[in-house]
């Protein structure tokens, strides 16, 4: 410690009693594996989002009233534009560093969602959701949902032609809710589409409500993590059920986190130079009633859009209620997928008659149910996501788009169950071959082998 820092610390310590909790924090042990950094990547992306987002809010105008653009862009000089779009053009074309901030913000949003998904995959595949960590897992799923919502609302704010198309489809999705759909849509939009209320409301969601929720939930998520401690990979000679082995927060984890945030920041900025992440200048403002070809949402909503494309025509008229394709694709499908993810810990607990607490991670290939469910769910989501790219694929390959749509219908139905079955069979064989079976209590299992594994 440098003398100045020591002086400062002593001054605070004598008033706040920092030394003892400080030691506890600094000596806290973190298991050491690269996949444990995925959650940190998500956290740091969120920090970047808040930092760049604050800069953006100083320029963005949340209104779709028409204003005359008075800036320098030759494409829009003297043209009447929605104020939100005009403010983003100004930010991109005239504010020094504005376009860089926009691109970093968009790149960080992609990284935030991608790393959250990967982090969830790690938790799911290695079994870190087992008791007592189900609440934290569920909070994580809630964070993922909020991240998806935040991303959608965020890229709708510039009100360019692509964003407006997405907003129109969101309106149709709200309408598709049985019984209450029309009222729900009118509440969210403030009337029949298009309204002037929507963008200001999206702004409030994007800048205040959802980030506030995310920050609060991250706080709870981390607090639970500190309290319950990390799970860890099995190690020979260590009883992971009783001990956490790894590296201390100071200096190892601190070094990793600092290196990570600088590295992530650098990569995001480099990507902002090379890739025009959110450039909308050439797209033009959203004009209700007009659309541009090649319209997709951002990648994290491809699964919903792909489902909208490949679902055969469905419109069931029951007395007082209409169930339509958009309801099934946009509401039922995500509910089923997230429902499966939420329910999975309890399903696994019941099927394998698990008891007690679990603190050691397991290899998903040795837990047949987990392997099968994971690959079944994710292969389905991936195939349906790929279906959302069918128009680009058609243009690149020359295959008529109708053929591609039919191909994706078939693969989405048949490939996931097939893969699930194959992996289930492989996992059982692997267990049999190595003389193991799925343990039902960690205290009984040889945690030096892996929490799933019990010698037969």
């Amino acid at each position, binding site marked *: 410690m440098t003398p100045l820092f020591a002086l400062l610390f002593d001054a605070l310590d004598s008033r706040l009693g920092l030394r003892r909790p400080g*030691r506890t924090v600094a*000596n806290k042990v973190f298991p050491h594996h690269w996949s444990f950094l995925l959650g940190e990547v998500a956290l740091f992306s969120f920090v970047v989002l808040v930092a760049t987002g604050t800069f953006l809010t100083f320029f963005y105008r949340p209104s779709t009233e028409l204003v005359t653009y008075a800036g320098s862009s030759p494409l829009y000089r003297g043209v009447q534009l929605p104020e939100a779009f005009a403010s983003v053009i100004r930010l991109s074309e005239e504010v020094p560093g504005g376009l860089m901030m926009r691109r970093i913000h968009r790149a960080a949003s992609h990284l935030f969602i991608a790393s959250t998904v990967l982090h969830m995959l790690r938790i799911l595949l290695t079994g870190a959701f087992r008791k007592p960590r189900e609440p934290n897992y569920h909070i994580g799923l809630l964070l993922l949902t909020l991240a998806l919502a935040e991303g959608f609302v965020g890229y709708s704010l510039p009100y360019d032609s692509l964003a407006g198309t997405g907003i129109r489809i969101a309106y149709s*999705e709200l*309408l*598709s809710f049985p019984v209450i759909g029309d009222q729900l849509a009118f509440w969210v939009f403030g009337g029949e589409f298009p309204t002037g209320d929507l963008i200001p409301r999206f702004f409030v969601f994007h800048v205040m409500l959802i980030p506030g929720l995310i920050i609060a939930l991250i706080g709870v998520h981390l607090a639970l993590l500190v309290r319950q401690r990390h799970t860890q990979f099995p190690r020979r000679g260590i009883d992971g059920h009783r001990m956490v082995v790894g590296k201390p927060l100071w200096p190892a984890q601190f070094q990793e986190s600092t290196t990570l945030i600088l*590295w992530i920041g650098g990569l995001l900025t480099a990507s902002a*130079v090379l890739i025009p992440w959110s450039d909308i200048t050439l797209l033009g403002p959203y004009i209700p009633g007009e659309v541009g070809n090649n319209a997709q949402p951002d990648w994290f909503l491809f699964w919903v859009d792909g489902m909208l494309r490949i679902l055969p025509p469905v419109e069931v008229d029951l007395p007082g209620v*209409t169930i339509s394709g958009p309801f099934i694709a946009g509401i039922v499908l995500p509910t089923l997928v997230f429902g499966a993810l939420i329910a999975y810990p309890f399903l696994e607990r019941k099927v394998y008659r698990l008891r*007690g607490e679990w603190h050691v991670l397991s290899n998903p290939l040795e837990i047949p149910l987990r392997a099968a469910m994971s690959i079944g769910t994710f292969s389905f989501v991936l195939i349906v996501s790929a279906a959302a790219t069918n128009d680009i694929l058609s243009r690149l390959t020359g295959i008529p788009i109708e053929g591609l749509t039919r191909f994706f219908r078939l693969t989405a139905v048949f490939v996931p169950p097939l893969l699930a079955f194959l992996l289930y069979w492989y996992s059982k064989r692997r267990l049999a071959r190595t003389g193991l079976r799925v343990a039902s209590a960690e205290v009984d299992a040889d945690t030096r082998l892996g929490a799933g594994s019990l010698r037969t």
Partner: protein
Amino acid sequence: MSFQTRPPEQLEVIAERVPPPSQANDALVIGTAIAAAVCAAGFAIALLLGAPLSAFATLLALAMLFMAISVRRYFADRYPDIDAAEPRAEPVPDESAIQGARGSPPIQGARGSPPIQGARGSPPIQGARGSPPISDVEPVVGRRPLLTRILIGCATVLGLSFLVPVSSLGPAPGNQLRMTQWRAGRRVVTGDGEPVRPEAIAPGGVVTAWPEGAIGAEPSAVIVLRLTQPPLPPTRPEWIVDGDVVAYSKICTHAGCPVALFRERENALFCPCHQSTFDANRGAVVTFGPAERALPQLPLGIENGELIALGDFVEQVGPAFG
């Protein structure tokens, strides 16, 4: 020293590797740190001088990347690499005694067993058989239980009433979704407000049009086409002008995207969002894709050489609503 006697915040070191001093590493730390500072200064100067994005953003990226390397190498040199261990909280014993027992206390803590989380010596959450409750103040015995239920019930009503301001967010839809702005006699105009004349539309041509006075009212958007083949049922012939000029709602009946791609050879209307295809020759029925209903046909007439509507659509416009 065993785990029980060691102060909880002291580190239990398992392995320690002290890095040897390395000139190369020191040089790397210094070099990358200085490079980071130089790039950061360069970024600042470039941004202030109005340099292009590729210049200042590259410098900023390099500054952060160099600094990351420098920090990592600094710590690798200055501190030993330590593997440490710490005990978890006293784990909860086998719960098979209370598993599946309906009516058992909702939170863990079976007879006499130590409670869950965090444990050494902390009081448990709820009173299970044998373990003390959270608060030491018990309710007075013999008071009416009905009061509790009434209170909770009414508090629920109060809580729910807080949701009611949500209804102020938007009007009740009423009949709005079942109607558009088209009325009998209303002229068909382009986005610039000019009335559409049939002779302005070439064979195979398509125009986006609106009711006069309601340009931009999206559910009322229509496309006016001149077909290249004779129209067939279920296209309504009484709503066709000039033998082959017909108007359909532009809003796709699947998810609401505007349908304006017109393949003039087959007279096919194609929605770019999810590829619903409608046959304009035959009343815009769906021939491919996820849409289920045909595009409604606008009752079209002509007055003084200008296209007018003969009334509102007779079918539901746009996507279905629950």
